[in-house]
């Protein structure tokens, strides 16, 4: 897919407090009653480059468990993924790995 504008994170990161620097960040996609299962699977394939089987497994995890972690890594990267998911109409959040 085409590039998204990069939020100017650098300015913010110095100001952000991080009480748990050892815990990785996650992008989480949440289930909603509107987006079609076929569409969500397609988005996971298109954006994350997953195989059909992997994308379906992830879509079903979202659907059956209400949410699923779709990416793990640096906060800035997780925010880019969340923005990309929002661009497709999926609801994604960013969080630190729960303890």
């Amino acid at each position, binding site marked *: 897919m085409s590039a998204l504008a990069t*939020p100017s994170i650098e300015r913010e990161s110095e100001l952000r407090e991080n009480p748990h620097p050892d815990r990785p960040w996650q992008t989480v996609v949440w289930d909603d*009653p509107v987006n079609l299962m076929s569409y969500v699977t397609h988005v996971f394939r298109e954006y994350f480059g997953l195989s059909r089987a992997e994308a379906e497994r992830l879509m079903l995890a979202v659907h059956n468990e209400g949410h699923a972690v779709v990416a793990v890594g640096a906060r800035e990267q997780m925010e880019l993924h969340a923005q990309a998911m929002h661009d497709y109409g999926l*609801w994604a959040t960013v969080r630190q790995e729960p303890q």
Partner: protein
Amino acid sequence: MTDRVIVMELARLEAAHLVGIVGQFLELLSDAAPDDGDPAIGRLVPPAYTDERDAREFRDLTETHLLERRRTDAGVVLASLADAAEIPDEPDDPALMESVEVRLDPEVAQAWLRTLAAVRLVLATRLGITGPEDHDPDNPRFGIYDWLGYRLDGLVSALDDEA
């Protein structure tokens, strides 16, 4: 997997309806002021954090661009439908039901996907669909919502078809 041209067949009347709906969507986006609290717009730029301050910061950084993308996508969809949506004035003219082909190259097809998905999100907000139990396919008030879902699903199938 999406480097092929997709050919979508639809009736002229259907194309004209789509133009009307996507046009309304574009109007909604153009009239939307940041922070006017419309939940339909809110659903297009959902909170990325549970923490309110973080969510606000993220939205401030991404909202303008995301809504601009919705407008651009909607414009691409309208442009691709321009010929197909030309309909005669006579309501019983058989040309209304004439089937026309709309050719979507990969980028245009992606704009269609995102637009159909976004319009459904807006309609779902208006229809009060917050859970699976809120949607009754036999109720005519969900007609347009279901029709857009049918078209979106067909487009996804065409794009994902690796044969």
